[in-house]
């Protein structure tokens, strides 16, 4: 069957158009439509090229080593800011970096000398390992499909960590929770400026995410697994 760029058949596109029209008119989904939509979401989530795809299914060449005492796991956006500034330096027709890009690039550069790591999802979001070097990846201690991993993911989803649709964000955070460490028992450190991630994790701790707490590092524990979160001001 011929598929379009979204990898959907014409019939599927027509069906999506129909249920969106119904939704805009305030008509509820039928149970059959809801079930089909759930299936389609799952399919799209796993389709290569979608932000919701699972880049961990796509191998990358960064070395994967257990985190050590000098390791800092960074969110995609931090490296992305560095790359934006670099792109413009190499090609003046690229988008002019904003002060936000430069802010993240500076933060990235302050980690020089540290052992900076990126999760598999981040490497995928950056477009591949060539956009992530010289950093390393990380290895995790369980299968992502394991009940232990999925239980943590369900808590992240329940608290909308990384927004309601943020499957990719939750994969990043989930991997940090299950990162292999040497020595074992080391608490992984995770740096992010994503407010939907920071605020969601603070709420898991029962802390109202307002005022100065938004810029203060904190620990969060889910099902006995702890990470140290460093919000970027």
């Amino acid at each position, binding site marked *: 069957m011929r598929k379009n760029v979204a990898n959907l058949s014409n019939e599927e596109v027509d069906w999506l158009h129909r249920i*969106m029209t119904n*939704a*805009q008119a*305030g008509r509820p989904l039928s149970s059959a439509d809801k079930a089909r939509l759930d299936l389609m979401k799952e399919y799209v989530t796993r389709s290569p090229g*979608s*932000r919701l795809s699972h880049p961990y299914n796509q191998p990358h060449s960064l070395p994967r080593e257990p985190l050590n005492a000098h390791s800092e796991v960074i969110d*995609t*956006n931090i490296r*992305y*800011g560095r790359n*934006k500034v670099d792109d413009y330096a190499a090609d003046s027709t690229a988008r002019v970096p*904003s*002060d*936000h*890009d430069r*802010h993240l690039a500076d933060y990235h550069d302050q980690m020089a000398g540290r052992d900076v790591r990126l999760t598999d999802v981040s490497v995928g*979001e*950056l*477009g591949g390992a060539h956009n992530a070097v010289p950093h390393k990846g990380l290895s995790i201690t369980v299968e992502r499909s394991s009940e232990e991993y999925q239980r943590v993911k369900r808590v992240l989803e*329940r*608290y*909308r960590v*990384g*927004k*309601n*649709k*943020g499957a*990719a*964000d939750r994969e990043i955070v989930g991997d940090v929770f299950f990162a292999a460490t040497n020595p074992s028992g080391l608490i992984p450190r995770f740096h992010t400026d*994503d*407010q*939907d991630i920071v*605020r969601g994790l603070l*709420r*898991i701790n*029962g802390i*109202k*995410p*307002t*005022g*100065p707490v*938004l*810029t203060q590092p904190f620990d969060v524990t889910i099902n006995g697994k702890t990470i140290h979160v460093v919000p970027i001001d």
Partner: protein
Amino acid sequence: MGYSYDFFVAALTCPHCGVVSKENYTTKMQTSIRDEDTDGVYMGVGFPLVLNLPEMEELNYIPILPVVEGETIRIGHSWVCVSCMWARRWAVVEVAENVIQKIEDIDIKKELIKLNYVHFDIVDELHAVLGISYDDLMDSDISALSKKLYSTES
């Protein structure tokens, strides 16, 4: 692929310390409202913004008032004063004819009931005012609670 968010930007005056914000990322008005098209873009007044209304809840915006076709859509979004970091502030983002028409500070207690959507951060008001735990809030009808909380303030 770009950043996982954009920013609403405006010069917002803090009612606590009087400092006027820069029109940039420092107010922490990150938004995923453009879904897959986000790229760390600054979206101020005049920015073209096509809203995907059926997806608003998935994008972290809680429905309050139904959208009326052809009328301005009002979206509540939290912001932070970079000077005093004072509590939680709220701004309204008004969108009409697929363009941002206005972004200004509001008193959420008075204005919430006039919004079409409010950011999920409203759970923090519910937590603080109603004393409901975050764990319980995640199982609650945030829209109904929000409307009930501030329905008599205006």
